[in-house]
C-alpha cells in the first residue's frame, strides 16, 4: 500500500509542490506496519471458574434476581408460617397422618413461579438485549457460558429454597409441637427441605433451558407456567370414563402433585403414581433432556 495521503486529491495535474503546507499532520503508516500490537497486560487463558465468577456478577447485579428470590423467600416463609398460625389457632389438632411439614407445601408451590421466572430471565434477558453477542465475543466457548449459567443459577436457587424451607420446617414443627401427636423422622425432614429444594432448583433449570431454546422471556415463562399448571387443569375437566387413565396420569405427574409427594407421609401416599424420591428423578431427567436441547441449540444456532 502506498503512504497515506489526504483522502481528497485533485485529479488535475499540477506541478507537485513538495513541502506544501496542506500535508496532514497525522501520517499513519499503512498496511506496511512492520509490527503487530502486543498487549502489556499478561495473557491468561480463561476457564470455567472465570465464567462462574462472571455469571455471579451478572446474576447479582440485576434487580430481577433480587425481586424473584426475595418473593420466593417471602412466599415460602410467609405462607408456611401463616398456615401454621391458622392450624394452631384452630379447634382441632392436626390428624395423625399429616405432619406439620406438609404446611410448607403451599408456599413452595407458589414460589415455583418465581424460580421459573428467574431461570428463564437468566438466559433470555441476554438474548432479548443482544448482550449474548457481547458475552460470546468475550467467551467463544458457548458451552462454558451456558454451563456457568446453569451452575450459578442452580446453586443460587437451591440455596435460597433450602434456607426458606428449612426455616419453615423448623418453625412449623416447633409451633405445632403440642398439636400433633406424631413424630417427624429425619428422612421426612430431609425430604421436605433438601428434596423440595432440589426439585425446585431442577425445575428452574428446565426453565433456563426453555429460555435458551426459545430466546424470548415472555414466551419461555408462559411455556413454563403452562407446563406446571396445564396438566392439572386439563385433568380436572376430563370427565369421561374412557379418559380416566389419561386423567390419572396427568394428575399424578403434574408438577404440583410431584411436589406434594415430598411432603406426604407414608399413610397418605397414593396407591399408584410416583412415590418417595421418584419425583426428583423425573424432574432431573426432564432437566437433562431440555438442557441437552439448550446446549445443542446454543452451539449450533446463530447467536
Amino acid at each position, binding site marked *: 500500500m502506498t503512504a497515506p495521503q489526504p483522502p481528497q486529491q*485533485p485529479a488535475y495535474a499540477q506541478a507537485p509542490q513538495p513541502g506544501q*503546507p496542506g*500535508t496532514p499532520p497525522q501520517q499513519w503508516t499503512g498496511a506496511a506496519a512492520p509490527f503487530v500490537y502486543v498487549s502489556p497486560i499478561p495473557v491468561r*487463558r480463561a476457564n470455567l471458574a472465570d465464567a462462574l*465468577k462472571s455469571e455471579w456478577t451478572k446474576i447479582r*447485579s*440485576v434487580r430481577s434476581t433480587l425481586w424473584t428470590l426475595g418473593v420466593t423467600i417471602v412466599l415460602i416463609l410467609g405462607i408456611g408460617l401463616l398456615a401454621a398460625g391458622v392450624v394452631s389457632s384452630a379447634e382441632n389438632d392436626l390428624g395423625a397422618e399429616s405432619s406439620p411439614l406438609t404446611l410448607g407445601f403451599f408456599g413452595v408451590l407458589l414460589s415455583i413461579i418465581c424460580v421459573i421466572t428467574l431461570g428463564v430471565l437468566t438466559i433470555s434477558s441476554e438474548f432479548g438485549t443482544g448482550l449474548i453477542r457481547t458475552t460470546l465475543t468475550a467467551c467463544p466457548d458457548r458451552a462454558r457460558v451456558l454451563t456457568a449459567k446453569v451452575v450459578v443459577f442452580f446453586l443460587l436457587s437451591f440455596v435460597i429454597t433450602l434456607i426458606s424451607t428449612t426455616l419453615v420446617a423448623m418453625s412449623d414443627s416447633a409451633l405445632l409441637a403440642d398439636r400433633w401427636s406424631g413424630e417427624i423422622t429425619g428422612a421426612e425432614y430431609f425430604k421436605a427441605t433438601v428434596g423440595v429444594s432440589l426439585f425446585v432448583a431442577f425445575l428452574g433449570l428446565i426453565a433456563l433451558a426453555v429460555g435458551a431454546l426459545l430466546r424470548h422471556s415472555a414466551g419461555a415463562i408462559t411455556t413454563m407456567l403452562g407446563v406446571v399448571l396445564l396438566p392439572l387443569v386439563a385433568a380436572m375437566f376430563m370427565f369421561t370414563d374412557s379418559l380416566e387413565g389419561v386423567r390419572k396420569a396427568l394428575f399424578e405427574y403434574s408438577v404440583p402433585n410431584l411436589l406434594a409427594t415430598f411432603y406426604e407421609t407414608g399413610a397418605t401416599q397414593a396407591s399408584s403414581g410416583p412415590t418417595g424420591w421418584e419425583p426428583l428423578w423425573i424432574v432431573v431427567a426432564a432437566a437433562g433432556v431440555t438442557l441437552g436441547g439448550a446446549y445443542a441449540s446454543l452451539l449450533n444456532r446463530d447467536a
Partner: protein
Amino acid sequence: MIEAVGLTKRYGAKTAVHNLSFQVRPGAVTGFLGPNGSGKSTTMRMILGLDMPTSGHVTIGGHPFRNLPNAPRQVGALLDAKAVHGGRSARLHLLSLAQLAGIPARRVDEVLGVVGLQDVAKRRSKGFSLGMGQRLGIAAALLGDPQVLLFDEPVNGLDPEGILWVRNLMKQLAAEGRTVFVSSHLMSEMALTADHLIVIGRGQLLADMSVQDFISTNSADFARVRTPDTAPEGREKLTAALVEAGGQVLAEPDGALRVTGVPLPRISDLAHDADVRLWELSPHQASLEEAYMRMTQGAVDYRSTVDQRAGLQPADPYGYGPGAPAPQGWAPPAGNPYPALAGERPNPYAQPMPPQAVPQAAPGYPSAPASQGMPPAPAVPPVAPAPPSTPPPGAAPAGPADLTKRDSEDAR
C-alpha cells in the same frame, strides 16, 4: 489481520452476504461501507463467529474466531450500543465481561476512564444516552486490549466532541499496529478516519482499495469553465478547442461548461490560444460521499421516493424536479466561520458540491476558495471521463453540510 474467503450467508431465500472475500490488515483503519441492509453487520457477526457462514470462512490471525486460543484478548468488538442489560451498572457490566475473559478487574476502571464514563460507572445503563451507550460498548471492546478491533457504527449518537474522540482513538489504535475494522455510513467520518475502504452492496464486494483510489476511481472530477456571458461565440470557440484537445465538454444550465479530460492549466492555455477570456476556471472534485453514492447507486435496497405533493405544487419554471435541493444554508467562501489555516487540510465537504450546491457562482468568482490549501497534487492525469451523471438530487449535497463545522474544526 482478518481474512474472509468466499463468505456467504443466506437466511432462507434472502442472501445477506454473497461470496465476500477481503483482507483487513493491521496498522490501518479499514472502513467498511455499504448501504443499509447490505450485509455489513452480518459480515461482522460472521467474523466474530456469532453467525455461521452458509459457505466460505473467515479467520482472524489465521484462526476462526471460535478456535482462537485467547479470543477476548485478541479481538474486541462493538456490535450494538444497546446490547447491554439495562438494569446492570456500567461498571458491573464491564466487570462481568472482564471476569469472563480472565482480565484483571482493575482493567475495568482503566477502560471506564478511557471512554470517559468513570463518573456514571455506578449508574444503571438503562438511563444512558445513545452516545454513552456507544462509549460503554467501546469500553467493552477495549477491555482485552486486543490486537484486532471491530466497530459497527461506533459514532452513532455521539456528539461532535465524541466523534472527534472516536476518530482519534481509531487512528491511535491503528498506529499502535492493531487491525481496526470500522463500519459506518457517515462518509465524512470515513474520509477522515479510514486509510482503506471495503465497500459492499447487496452483500457483494464493490470495492476494496485505499480511500484515495476509491475516490479517483469512482468520482467524476471536472473543471468548471465559464466564459463571459457577453461573448457567446467565445464559448463555442473554447468548446471546439477543448474537444480538439481531447476533452469532454458539457454545457451546464447556467451557461458554464463542465470539462473533463483536460487538466486545468491546459484549459487555461487553450483559452489563451483561442483568445477567449475566462470568468471562471475551477476544479471540482468528488467527495468520498459522491464517489460512494455513485458506486452504490445500483445497490441500495431502501430508496425513498420523492414526496410529490401532487396537485399542490405549481409548475416549476426552471425544469428542476421537485427533488432539486434547496440552497444550502452555508455559504462556503464568504462567511466561513472556520477559515482554513496555514497547514490545514481542507475540509472536503466545505467545498461546493457540484453542481447544484454551488450557490450561483457569480461572474468572476475565482477558483481560489475551492483550491486554497489543497493537498499536493500528484501528477496524475485526469481519470477516465466518467459519464456526466448528476448525483442523486438532494442526496449528495444535503448530507455532509451539517458536518461542516465539526470537520473543519479539527482538521488541524
